[in-house]
């Protein structure tokens, strides 16, 4: 699989990430959570990209997600999505590629960095107190991180059967 194959795979993953964020948007807001708290399902696609294709592709996915949020939900949401997405992508890539971290740890750290980058941006945009949400975000990141890690663990064997990642890697 050459360059075109990698571009096609990145495009498919981007579509998957967008579909997952849309699906997430359909779920009812969670009680007790800050407005806009999401499960981070689209992080599964980003995590897979960071682990098996490479950092540029994964950062590209985060960028696409950010632009999608910008177009569909406005400037604030776009900025929040972009900041969280880029920081957490970098974190997950480091953990997957440069450390022996397990998938759940990677998912949890990805969720934590995503949430805290967003918290910083939220604090910067509005001046309202956001620290009240910190404990909820910590627990929530733990749960959703383990969830995304588990989903990726379950889907990995299927993806390996398709042999896409190997073809990209062997290139």
């Amino acid at each position, binding site marked *: 699989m050459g360059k075109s194959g990698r571009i096609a795979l990145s495009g498919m993953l981007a579509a998957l990430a967008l579909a997952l964020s849309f699906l997430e948007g359909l779920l009812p807001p969670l009680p007790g959570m800050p407005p806009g708290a999401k499960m981070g399902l689209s992080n599964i696609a980003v995590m*897979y990209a960071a*682990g*098996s294709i490479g950092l540029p592709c994964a950062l590209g996915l985060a960028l696409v997600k950010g632009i999608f949020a910008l177009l569909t939900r406005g400037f604030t949401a776009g900025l929040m999505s972009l900041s969280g997405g880029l920081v957490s992508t970098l974190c997950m890539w480091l953990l*997957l*590629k*440069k*450390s*022996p*971290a*397990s*998938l*759940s*740890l990677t998912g*949890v750290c990805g969720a*934590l960095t995503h949430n805290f980058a967003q918290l910083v941006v939220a604090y910067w945009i509005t*001046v*309202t*107190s956001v*620290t*009240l949400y*910190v*404990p*909820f975000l*910590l*627990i929530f*990141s*733990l749960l959703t991180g383990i969830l995304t*890690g*588990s989903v990726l*663990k379950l889907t*990995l*064997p299927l993806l*390996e059967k398709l042999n896409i*990642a190997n073809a990209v*890697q062997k290139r």
Partner: protein
Amino acid sequence: MVKRLNTKEVRLFSRQEWPFFVIIVLVAAGIFALQSQAPKGIMAVVEVEGQTTVRRDLAQVEGAESLPIAGADGIALTVEFSREGARVLSSTCPDKTCQRTGLLSRAGESAVCLPGRVVLRLEGKEDRSLEADAVTG
């Protein structure tokens, strides 16, 4: 160390990582405990012609609560309190400055209706004791 993301090389959980998860839970519990101990929330104060007429602890407000305020010169205001803060919903005065101030959410913020001589401001609970000291001293 460069490794590939595949089922053989990546595990879902690792025994050495459990302490990290436990630490997250402990930190969350710790911060939550600190937050619930700290003097919660903010007091919303309404003053008409220099006299405090309403004091509401915003942490104890359920949902949104609106309250009519009669200002000077027959100017009527509606003030809304909620957990997020307080604001002037409407005013019969012509300039509507207080209404345009929007939601007040932090201690020290205020919305002022000059024609009605009404001040809506937020103060932290600790500010109240300072104020009391200032009055007695």
